[in-house]
């Protein structure tokens, strides 16, 4: 696999060189670039998928059932892929591990320490940033999962048959080979979105345990928006002392009841195909509605906030986008914020589709 890596390196260098030539061309004929732009689409970095493959499906609003007729489904991802995904689901919830991770997005590189352990059926997870501001988080949670979570990335439970088909309507899963990460052999799996409403995912699973050792979120044109990658992994049992906070102001969260199904007066009249509600939570100043297609998650916040938050537009941090909008109901103005690892356009459309019940 190292060989492939090298080849990629060469290719990208060659592309760079070619770019210089192209650059000269563009200077001579700046207007000509538009035609060439199409051709550029195929010059990809090796690992990055072209966003949605050729089979873009379903005009907006098509019922889920029609999104991807059987003929378009890959003869379900190769059984091998399914096995890997099952292994992954078990690994992320059941394994004890600790390691060092690099987390990159928006051109920033941060390093962090992660610890995961299971104690009396409870998952304890600790994340501590080793660079930048000291930040630390400790989460305690039972293994319960939100209902929609039949997806392959479910933290708990095996990947059910139904959930599998569901998520395969939205993504095509491809086994992409092998790579060595953190001194371990991994298999590379790509989840390629079938439409433009969601991001792609490339994940490297530890060959031995199925633990994801590298996760990349990929946007349109194969641009990598975020990369989370182990540089060191220790699978020996985690000591209790490793689960203790190392900084005084570590944030603790209790994730024992992560999903609630409160009633909300807010509704979303348009959702990308395959996204379903997984949780509805009341906040002090509004409601929070969570949706997922089995892989991607976004959250819709509808809150009554001050006029200083009268903002219409988006904020972007790595792969996460927040699109803000306002909605007026009975003379009262509410702030709508759609947050998620989804394309900007999707967030915007969802935000504009928020309505009040009845």
């Amino acid at each position, binding site marked *: 696999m190292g060989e492939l*890596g090298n080849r990629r390196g060469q290719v990208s260098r060659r592309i760079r060189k070619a770019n210089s030539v192209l650059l000269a061309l563009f200077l001579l004929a*700046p207007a000509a670039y538009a035609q060439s732009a199409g051709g550029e689409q195929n010059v990809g970095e090796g690992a990055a998928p072209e966003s949605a493959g050729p089979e873009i499906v379903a005009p907006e609003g098509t019922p889920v059932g029609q999104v991807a007729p059987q003929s378009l489904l890959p003869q379900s991802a190769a059984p091998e892929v399914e096995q890997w995904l099952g292994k992954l689901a078990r690994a992320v919830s059941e394994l004890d591990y600790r390691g060092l991770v690099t987390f990159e997005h928006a051109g920033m590189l941060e390093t962090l320490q992660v610890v995961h352990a299971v104690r009396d059926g409870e998952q304890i*997870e600790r994340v501590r940033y080793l660079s930048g501001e000291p930040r630390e988080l400790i989460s305690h949670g039972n293994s319960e999962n939100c209902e929609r979570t039949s997806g392959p990335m479910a933290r708990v439970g095996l990947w059910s048959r139904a959930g599998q088909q569901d998520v395969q309507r939205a993504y095509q899963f491809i086994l992409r080979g092998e790579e060595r990460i953190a001194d371990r052999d991994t298999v590379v799996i790509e989840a390629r979105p079938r439409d433009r409403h969601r991001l792609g995912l490339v994940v490297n699973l530890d060959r031995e345990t199925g633990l994801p050792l590298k996760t990349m979120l990929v946007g349109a*044109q194969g641009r990598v928006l975020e990369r989370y990658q182990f540089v060191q992994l220790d699978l020996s049992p985690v000591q209790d002392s490793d689960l203790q906070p190392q900084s005084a102001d570590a944030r603790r969260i209790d994730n024992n009841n*992560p999903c609630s199904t409160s009633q909300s007066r807010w509704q979303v009249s348009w959702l990308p195909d395959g996204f379903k509600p997984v949780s509805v939570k009341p906040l002090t100043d509004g409601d929070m509605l*969570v949706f997922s297609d089995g892989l991607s998650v976004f959250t819709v916040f509808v809150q009554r*906030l001050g006029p200083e938050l009268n903002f219409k537009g988006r904020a972007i941090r790595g792969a*996460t986008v927040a699109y803000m909008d306002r909605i007026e109901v009975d003379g009262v103005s509410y702030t709508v914020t759609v947050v998620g690892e989804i394309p900007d*356009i999707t967030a915007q459309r969802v935000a504009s589709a928020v309505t009040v019940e009845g």
Partner: protein
Amino acid sequence: MSHGNHHDRLNESLSALMDGEVSELELQRLLKASSSSAEVSARWSRYQLAASVMRREQVAPVDTGLAASISAAVEREEPLAQSGGGAEAADGLANSRWWRPLSRGAVAATVAFAAILGVQQLQLSSADRGVQSGGELVAEVERPAQQVVQSSPQPTGFYVPAPSTRSVSTASPRLVPDSQPGVAGQAVIQQMPTPELMRHLNRVMIQHSEQAAHVGSQGMVPFARATYGEQVGL
């Protein structure tokens, strides 16, 4: 120094800039030159267009004013070279990929998002555009992409592109200076978020991430995201 020589050197600097190999000194010189010379400015715009096309970014056709917006951006950048007063502009612009080589300090200091408003949507596909109200001034500055970093080591002695990834050792957030008074009627303006806005965005991003950890999760990635947003004073 003859004018011609000076000119050549500027062009060289410009090329270096596009390759991410410009020195601070050259950078200052370029910024200064671009503000006074329409030609340098125009050339810069063309480089940027060409470069982004080659990175397979979608850009708007020339005639919809992308070049103009770049020029506007260049103008906004100019005070940075002279007074430092344009730092907030640089922060916002840092979000744009081709701009990154320009605003080193700004990028390093900007740990949180750059929220962007008021930029026409360049990336809207025509299909989507039909859905949106045309006059809406919504930001569509492309999302900063994480360059794929090669795993294999670069041989020494060869040309190595300047690293696109910055290691952040100081995260002291120079986040939100005074928000600039919005220039009415100007379509292509980027605006820095107010502290209230930053707090709100941080809060919703954290809440979202913590929730996402229990839905379609990739192990502990959402926790990494949730924790990332915590900033002193926010």
